[in-house]
């Protein structure tokens, strides 16, 4: 059994941040040994003789691996954009150890065998846990329930028609009632189709100047308000995906105050960019929900800091260059995000490490019921970890993802993923393109 010693990092334990040596063995954290000044190196040095590899984490923060509850891995059906292998590699490069794969594939993940195909492919690739999300409606048709029991049996815990909105309130209510008894969370892409029809960007000053049809913030808030009332009625766990505006934040805050089982996520790009960026008409700033005015971005940052928004999620949506490099109105929606998420959230919030890992690992793991992830580091937990250089500045370029439609290209961000460990194995190492090798053996 190979053993890796992670020496001298700032380790996020249940008791707080501790400078410690962490030993990984058998896919788990075997030991966490605080480093005492003066003798710390000796302990590490002693252990090193037993370990197959020692990795020096001095100056780095070691925390639970990130969990993305919202990524489009495009397999099956659109492998020219991404597949589970390339998407897993991108996730590992972003410090992720688990990814919830959205079900709007071709065919959509609306039945058990399709969900099992995705989790099996994820296991074969072996870089992150790929947890399939399942559709709420069959074939994403917005009319009939998907095979919810089959999906549940196949391990699906997140149910969503993401990309589309379950607009029929009666249908959504039945899905909530059914799943409330069964378990699992209903995740909604909240966008009223009547209000957003034909829209390409946030409806406001910029869209009016450009003559583009807009998507008002209201398209999100009317659905959110309705759904929160349904969640209250049914008692079902309800999750709002990619919150984009301040008004939705207020609705969530009010619902949580009443004790509703409600959670929410925000994407890193909605924290950093605004509709002012979309004014360039560069399709790399086109996504749904659209980038809102700067005041909304500020409200989202504050909500994520506060916890009104529980988690950051990437909405990683790869598109091939030939699809995205077209006029704005003809471009597909969505941007990639797995490889920039940590640094983008770190840069936007300037949080302490514990808060960041809570929003990017602990909370999303809880929402997605991914119990092997999102755990503060102590002996016995599955070794799903990320080591990050907290204050390193870097300029974004080049991706492990098959696509590079990222608005962060060329941006300078603070905080960089240096190592990712999935089930005790090193799955990513900055600057080492051979880091995808599933088994890492031998000391350097």
């Amino acid at each position, binding site marked *: 059994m190979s053993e890796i010693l992670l020496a001298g990092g700032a380790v996020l334990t249940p008791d707080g941040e501790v400078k410690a040596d962490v030993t990984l063995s058998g896919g788990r954290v075997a030991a966490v040994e605080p480093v005492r000044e003066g003798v710390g190196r000796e302990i590490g040095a002693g252990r090193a003789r037993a370990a197959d590899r020692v990795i020096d984490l001095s100056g780095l923060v070691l925390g639970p691996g990130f969990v993305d509850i919202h990524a489009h891995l495009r397999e099956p059906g659109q492998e020219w954009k991404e597949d589970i292998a390339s998407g897993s590699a991108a996730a590992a490069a972003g410090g992720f150890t688990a990814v919830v794969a959205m079900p709007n594939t071709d065919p959509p993940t609306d039945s058990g065998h399709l969900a099992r195909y995705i989790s099996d492919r994820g296991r074969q690739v072996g870089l992150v846990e790929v947890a399939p999300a399942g559709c709420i409606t069959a074939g994403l048709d917005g009319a009939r329930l998907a095979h919810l029991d089959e999906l549940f049996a196949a391990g699906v815990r997140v149910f969503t028609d993401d990309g589309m909105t379950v607009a029929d309130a009666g249908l959504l209510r039945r899905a909530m009632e059914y799943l409330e008894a069964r378990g699992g969370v209903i995740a909604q892409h909240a966008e009223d189709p009547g209000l957003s029809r034909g829209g390409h960007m946030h*409806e*406001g*000053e910029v*869209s*009016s*100047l*450009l*003559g*583009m049809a*807009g998507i*008002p913030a209201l398209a999100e808030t009317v659905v959110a308000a309705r759904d929160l009332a349904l969640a209250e009625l049914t008692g079902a766990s309800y999750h709002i995906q990619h919150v984009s505006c301040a008004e939705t934040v207020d609705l969530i805050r009010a619902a949580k105050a009443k004790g509703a089982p409600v959670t929410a996520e925000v994407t890193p790009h909605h924290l950093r960019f605004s509709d002012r960026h979309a004014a360039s*008409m560069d399709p790399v700033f086109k996504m749904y929900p659209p980038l809102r005015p700067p005041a909304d971005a500020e409200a989202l940052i504050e909500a994520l800091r506060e916890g009104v928004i529980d988690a950051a999620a990437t909405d990683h949506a790869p598109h091939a260059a*030939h699809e995205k*490099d*077209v*006029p*704005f*109105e*003809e471009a597909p929606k969505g941007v990639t995000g797995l490889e920039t998420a940590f640094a983008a959230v770190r840069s936007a919030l300037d949080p302490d490490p514990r808060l960041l890992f809570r929003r990017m690992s602990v909370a999303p793991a809880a929402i997605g019921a991914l119990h092997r992830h999102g755990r503060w580091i102590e002996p016995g937990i599955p070794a799903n970890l990320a080591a990050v250089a907290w204050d390193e500045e870097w300029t974004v370029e080049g991706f492990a993802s098959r696509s590079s439609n990222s608005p962060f290209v060329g941006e300078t961000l603070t905080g960089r993923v240096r190592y990712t460990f999935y089930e005790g194995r090193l799955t990513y190492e900055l600057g080492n393109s051979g880091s995808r090798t599933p088994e890492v053996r031998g000391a350097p």
Partner: protein
Amino acid sequence: MSFLTTRGVPRKDLEELLDSADEFNRVLARPIPKVPALQGKLVANLFFEDSTRTRLSFERAARALSADVMNFSAAGSSAAKGESLKDTALTIRALGADLMVVRHKAAGAPRRIAAWTGRPVVNAGDGAHQHPTQGMLDALTLRQRFGGLDGLRVAIVGDIRHSRVARSNVFAFTALGAGVTLVAPRTLQPVSTGGWPVDATDDLDGVLGEVDVVYLLRIQAERGGLSVFPSLPEYVSRYGMTRDRFDRLPAEAVVLHPGPMNRGVEIDDAVAGHPRALVLDQVANGVAVRMAVLFRLLGGSG
């Protein structure tokens, strides 16, 4: 350098372009209305959306400057066979185009083409965004009529929300000193007029007596499908330039329309044919303005 929008262009540059267009109008009035200025240059008209009159105007302008002209229209072309816009643009550049005139239904398409090809691009209409040569030819028409635009009161009437002409005119006219009022029902007004130096009203009859210029936009019948107004007759009853409304305008006021006109809808026959309807002056000025733009972008090393 490209000409993609009238928004944000300094007044001095707009005036210089109009001055130059005045000269080209004199060239066009000569016995031989042609100059050799752009001999050997190749102007490509890339029309991904039909517009015979705009294409003809650009073609006339390019030929009067002795440029060669290459026409590409989407129907029956490689675009219809699924070729990407980028590949089409790069192909046109490889064929030797020195400048591209681009009409496209998507806002920002001309700007993308300029970025892809590194060639100067003239925006001949992109979505509901801009049609800057239209804005300039309208400004020229008003300058000819009134001597200048300073203090002119202009009402732009119709489907402003979906109009690239309105956007081009608002920013050209106001930069040149005119005051603009947008007249339309709320559903045809821009959602936001933040950044637009204009007033807005839904009451055409309320402003008729105090404007120098009524600029009528074409009502596109296909918008009816979006239910932006109840019915065409109801639109006409509130916003149509009828003879009765025309008679209530100040004595010197003029009517402009970018064409093609829907007679009986936004403009009555009797108004369309009136000497104070400057529609054909607009068309004629279109050639001079486009000559000025082409000469500005190609008549020099940069």
